[in-house]
């Protein structure tokens, strides 16, 4: 079936399978591999995208359900060479190691900062508690985002 939706600021129209997830659509159908598949159960946040102003696990969203929606993926956050402040902060603060969780963290953190430009440390921890990182122990990610929050 055909769905029409806004993806990273552009109107798109695409055929989707009846059982296809948004994650599969993005990765395999629309050449946007930035959203990562690590658990397919909504437990790790590696596939986080923003859909209609909500951060969601795209592995749990039916592709057919994005009809009419506004979706932002990690690929939609930087503007050419100009990184999103969250992206720059994670690079500067040592928030990236293997990087597999990073796109999900970038999207979830950008979403947090959009609603709250100066989150407290506990607000950062709680807002990102749905994103698993196996490399950093979260320390580098926390310091990166505390720095961005001006703390």
């Amino acid at each position, binding site marked *: 079936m055909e769905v029409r939706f806004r993806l990273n600021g552009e109107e798109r129209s695409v055929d989707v*399978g009846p059982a296809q997830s948004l994650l599969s659509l993005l*990765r*395999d159908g629309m050449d*946007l*591999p*930035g*959203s*990562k*598949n*690590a*658990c*397919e*159960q909504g*437990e*790790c946040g*590696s596939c986080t995208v923003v859909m209609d102003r909500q951060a969601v696990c795209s592995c749990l969203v039916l592709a057919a359900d994005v009809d009419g929606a506004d979706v932002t*993926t*990690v*690929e939609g*956050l*930087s503007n050419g060479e100009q*990184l999103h402040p969250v*992206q*720059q902060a*994670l*690079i*500067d603060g*040592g928030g*990236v*190691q*293997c*990087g*597999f*969780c*990073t*796109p999900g963290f*970038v999207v979830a953190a950008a979403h947090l900062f959009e609603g709250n430009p100066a989150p407290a440390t*506990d607000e*950062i*921890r*709680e807002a*990102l*508690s*749905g*994103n*698993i*990182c*196996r*490399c*950093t*122990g*979260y*320390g*580098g*990610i*926390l310091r990166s985002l505390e720095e961005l929050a001006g703390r």
Partner: protein
Amino acid sequence: MTTTTDTQVRGGIGESVKRPDGIPKVTGNFAYASDLTAEGMLWGATLRSPFAHARLVRIDTAASLAIPGVHAVLTQDDVPGRKTFGQIVADQPVLVDGEARFWGEPVAVVAADDPETARIAVATIEVEWEELDPLVDMETALEQDEVFRYAPVRRGDQQASGSVVVEEYYEVGTQDQAPLGTEAGLAIPDGEGGIDLWVTSQWTHEDHDQIWRSLDLAPDQIRQHPTGIGGAFGAREDMSLHLHLCLLALRTGRPVKMVYNREESFPGHVHRHPARLWYRHEAESDGKLVRVEAKMILDGGAYTDTTPAVVANAVYFAVGPYNVDSVTVDGYGVRTNNPPTGAMRGFGVVQACYAAESQMDRLAAELGMDPLELRKRNAMTTGDAMPTTGQIIETSLPTVEVIDEVAAIPLPPPLDSDDPLHLPGGTGLTTTPQYVTRGIGYAVSIKNIAFSEAFDDFAEARVVLTPSGVEVHTAAVEVGQGMVTVLQQIARTALGIEQVAVVPADTSVIGSAGSTSASRQTQMTGGAVLEASRALRAVALERGGGDELNSEGVWRDGALAMSLEELCADGPLSEHTRFRHPPTVEPDENGQGDLHADFAVAAHRAVVDVDTELGLVRVVQVDTAQDVGMVLNPQSARGQIEGGILQGVGLAVMEELIVDQGIIRNASFTDYLLPTFLDAPDVEMVLLEEPSPWGPFGAKGIGEPPTISSTPAVAAAIRNATGLALNRVPIRPQDITGT
């Protein structure tokens, strides 16, 4: 090893240089194995054994092969060369050979037009099984002499005895590395009967050496390429889908991609060995250790994998960094039908350290002595003999210093908040502060760096000077730890040239860099890059007739004598090295000898809050002092140490494969619990810089120590809070409540 020839340059050693892969990783453009595609690509999928032990009575692939869009369905009969693989002993069939020996063992593989068709094809293969009794108890396996390796230690007077004795039994559960990226790869036929393979791996040359044998090809017909890896932690030290991809690509003549989902990733790689350990410590009343005896069994699963080396590590580091003259250890790696086990960060030392450090606390309690005082009274340093192997320690070994430094880090303030985020149980609102008890615990560890026991351990690197800067060619695999950054820094400092690019090299263009494991790449490939860079500098200076090299060229008496372009007028200048660490030997029949190349110590202190009614634990803070030789990149070192500590915390309180009759019952991220942002303790650290005799600029590997003594420190803290014995990790709620 710093010499006067090393130059000050921006981005050299000692700076928190940013990762070269940072931008692609934050923008989603970094290509992991699971992101690769090729024109005309097929998708692979795997049929797995539903039993931990069963006879394959019949397999019929005809119906599966007849499905439109299915291009190949392969079984063990289709393996053209060596039917088995394995890096120490080739005892694992490429596909089930008539008998499945663990749950999830690959039985057949298919290639189809798309992933859905591939999955349907797998489900359509007709299989008849005869279920067999699985061997799932490691002590039974030992009784039946199902032993991959027995490693003994007999050192000193075997009759020695002390006046104070503590004797206990310990268990360690099965931990999963749970790298965020699952096993994935892409095999592309080269049109001439060979294959180019991109696959999640920690050691491309070792894989390559197994792959060509099973495919019955010449070695140069297979090229294994480094690719983006979403974490490893040991899980990729042994092969997974490598051969399956190649078999399917060769059969179909088309590129084949395969990506494990999380459920199949759990049985699809080796885990940390579950272990049972019996310990007896004897000391004099002043705390001096007199004798340590240990017996340990590690469950090696169905195939050898790296079990022999893991057992050796557990045995040789059974005592910890303490001087004892009388030691007896018997270590066994046994064969069962439990999930595969092999390398995971800490590699055998984790299990031994948990038990041995628990013993040290018990001994201190028995002696009425401060646990840190007991450790310091027995602490090894440079010049002492390893209590197990007798090897004299030649490297720096600041054991007392790491203990003192970690103890000097300020403790966190007492629990003063009723914010549920700061309480055990979190937003589950399970408790209030009055029911929470705080505990503090310490542990100390020693770990070998690089490969041991006479293994021919080397790393190759080629450093190339071009008019636009320097290229470092290496087959060493970056798995996320930051090696690419450190290699750049080493080359910059050695050459005085800022423009350095690390170029990942496939198996056909350079020799092995060895495995990205054993905390070895900074010292080994880093050592190779340093050696090659210094040789390259000497060549450049000679050619340019000068005394200094930098980003512009060779200088003489303060004036530019020859530009990089002129230096490279006849082509790039290139130096290649094969770097080896000091040789090690095989153990004698008593486990004695200079078995190890280098050592590092670490100490951890954990602070926990425990809800003793529900058995819930919040790990508040884990501090560490670590012997790092020399810090090459402070930010990167901190990241490695924090990440390693959290994996140790995970083993202490939550991470365990639940295995029932060989079957993993929690093969998902819903059921296998990983520490989240809210589970992560604060970490304060002190990095002790006493140089290694042979690490580049004195650096030691830093990846594993954080994961080793953090687990027993957390266990000690929970014991301190509860007064319970807690002889098993992970410590579950029921272990605390007794219900």
